[in-house]
């Protein structure tokens, strides 16, 4: 552990946004926004620098204040964390730019929400901290920070529906965290350590471990809106302000997924069974079908997009059954691990870009119309061509048509499914694509319907439309650096590993 390079970047990635968020609290409305935007740009720049650092030197660590664990905190940035941090930075910076303009668009916009900026910076710090954490308790603190900031952002608009949705979201978040923390307590009780790396070695299978795994998985599933705990997501994400919806859907839910993935792969390998993988995959499969179907049934744009998130998160859960090998299969012989991981990572990134673009576009439509009932979209397309294009492109990526990032994810997922011989997941992937095409084209066909009499239509700033379009294009462009990214991910960390599940009597550590 000590042979890893110590670098200041992990600490800065958390510290800088916290510092600027705190700083911005001392300013008035405009100043808050300015400091906030500055903070976003700096944090994003720092994330890129840190990414390059990891790319050059491999995993870097930082021990806060020189206090060694267990009482001190160690941050650890490996390639998986770097990719998530990089994604947060790129998507986050575009959403910030959008928010800057969106909250300034005085007459047509929703007004100014200066608190957005400190909350978003705290949230960003929480996300970075989460990706960098190397012990279970630190993860708890970061998901709590994320949860509270996310809810605060979700209720920022002050509307009643947002309040209800926000309270529900908050209660779900607290429940999830408490369940997670209970698991942490059990783990600590049985091993006396919280360090992820150490736990991977010392954790022994047994009732306590299994129970801890169960409550932790439950807690994180609630947090990431995995089926059947997805109920809080659609109202919360759809009632929030546009940039907030984009942040919540594109980035926040990925945090819980990240922990789930890390813990399953790095820590709980010893007590995870093949059946557990199948079960979580089944939850994902149901989420894909159910979420897409629900999206298809909605009549307002933001609800469609929010339900679509439930489905798209389902695809993420579907990689678990591929990563958990059947008894008797060794990780070396399982050639589908790499495709499955690639599918997961690409699904995370492609969805982040596409969904951010989708929500930002929806925000523009609300700005123009004052509501987002989908039948009104037809009146807009002629005037908001760029937004229509953004929705179209983002939709294509969500469906998974070539050559988008979503296609890459589905291609790899199907490839993994076939290679592993778990063909029963294949129809789910296909049905999901079809249903997604259903709701995406339900929107797009309105672009071709003749416009009716214009109601009250307000022009929207073109710069906002362009940000949405760039994000949509981003979900296509991410395919090109795929080679590099996968190589990078394979260089350190857990990427590409699998769990050799328990064979009767004996237990094997994870790969």
């Amino acid at each position, binding site marked *: 552990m000590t042979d890893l390079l110590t670098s200041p970047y992990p600490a800065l990635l958390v510290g800088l946004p916290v510092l600027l968020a705190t700083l911005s609290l001392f300013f008035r409305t405009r100043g808050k926004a300015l400091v906030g935007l500055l903070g976003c740009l700096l944090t994003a720049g720092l994330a890129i620098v840190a990414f390059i650092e990891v790319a050059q030197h491999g995993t870097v660590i930082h021990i806060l204040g020189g206090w060694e664990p267990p009482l001190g905190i160690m941050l650890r940035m490996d390639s998986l964390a770097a990719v998530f941090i990089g994604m947060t930075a790129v998507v986050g910076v575009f959403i910030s730019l959008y928010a800057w303009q969106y909250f300034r668009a005085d007459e047509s916009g929703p007004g100014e929400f200066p608190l957005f900026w400190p909350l978003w910076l705290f949230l960003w710090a929480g996300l970075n901290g989460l990706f960098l954490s190397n012990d279970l308790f630190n993860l708890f603190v970061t998901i709590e920070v994320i*949860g509270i900031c996310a809810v*605060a952002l979700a209720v920022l608009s002050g509307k009643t529906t947002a309040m*209800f949705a926000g*309270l529900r979201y908050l*209660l779900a978040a*607290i*429940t999830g965290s*408490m369940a997670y923390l209970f698991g942490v*307590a059990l783990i*600590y009780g049985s091993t006396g350590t919280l360090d992820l790396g150490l736990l991977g070695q010392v954790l022994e299978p047994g009732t306590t471990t299994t129970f801890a795994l169960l409550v932790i998985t439950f807690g994180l599933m609630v947090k990431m809106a995995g089926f059947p705990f997805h109920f809080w997501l659609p109202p919360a994400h759809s009632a929030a302000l546009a940039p907030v919806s984009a942040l919540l859907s594109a980035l926040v839910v990925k945090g819980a997924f990240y922990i789930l993935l890390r813990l399953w792969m790095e820590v709980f390998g010893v007590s995870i069974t093949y059946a557990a993988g199948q079960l979580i995959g089944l939850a994902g499969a149901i989420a894909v079908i159910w979420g897409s179907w629900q999206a298809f049934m909605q009549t307002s744009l933001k609800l469609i997009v929010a339900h679509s998130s439930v489905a798209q998160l389902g695809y993420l859960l579907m990689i678990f059954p591929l990563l958990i090998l059947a008894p008797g299969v060794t990780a070396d012989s399982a050639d589908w691990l790499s495709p499955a991981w690639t599918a997961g990572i690409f699904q995370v990134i492609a969805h982040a870009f596409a969904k951010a673009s989708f929500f930002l576009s929806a925000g523009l439509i609300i700005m123009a119309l004052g509501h987002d009932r989908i039948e009104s979209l037809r009146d807009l397309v002629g005037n908001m061509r760029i937004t229509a294009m953004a929705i179209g492109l983002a939709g294509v990526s969500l469906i998974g048509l070539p050559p988008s990032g979503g296609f890459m994810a589905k291609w790899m997922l199907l490839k993994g499914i076939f290679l592993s011989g778990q063909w029963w997941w294949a129809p789910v992937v296909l049905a999901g694509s079809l249903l997604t095409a259903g709701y995406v084209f339900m929107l797009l066909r309105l672009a071709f319907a003749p416009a009716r009499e214009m109601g009250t239509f307000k022009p929207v700033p073109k710069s906002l439309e362009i940000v949405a379009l760039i994000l949509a294009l981003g979900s296509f462009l991410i395919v090109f650096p795929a080679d590099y990214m996968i190589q990078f991910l394979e260089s350190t960390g857990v990427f590409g590993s699998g769990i050799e599940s328990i064979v009767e009597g004996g237990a094997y550590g994870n790969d």
Partner: protein
Amino acid sequence: METYQIYSLTSAVLFVIGLGGVFISRHFIKKIIATIIMGGGVFLSFVSFAERDALTFADPVPHALVITGIVVAVASAAFALALARRIYQLTGEESFTKDK
């Protein structure tokens, strides 16, 4: 039965009561209290493990964790209460109804 086992069991019971409460009750305040009970259970379990390993003195790490945890939990609960209060002021409702 050792002392710490009593604590552990109690903590598990508290956790389950809280969890059930969160899902079953509709009323805002009841739900919030349920999460606090869950939290109580969790913190108790930490402390009970500290007690178990105590040879000469209790393990300090769980105490540090619990203090941090309590701070976080209090903040969450306060936030939830503030939200609930605001909803009550805005709409007069004090529980989740089916359609909301």
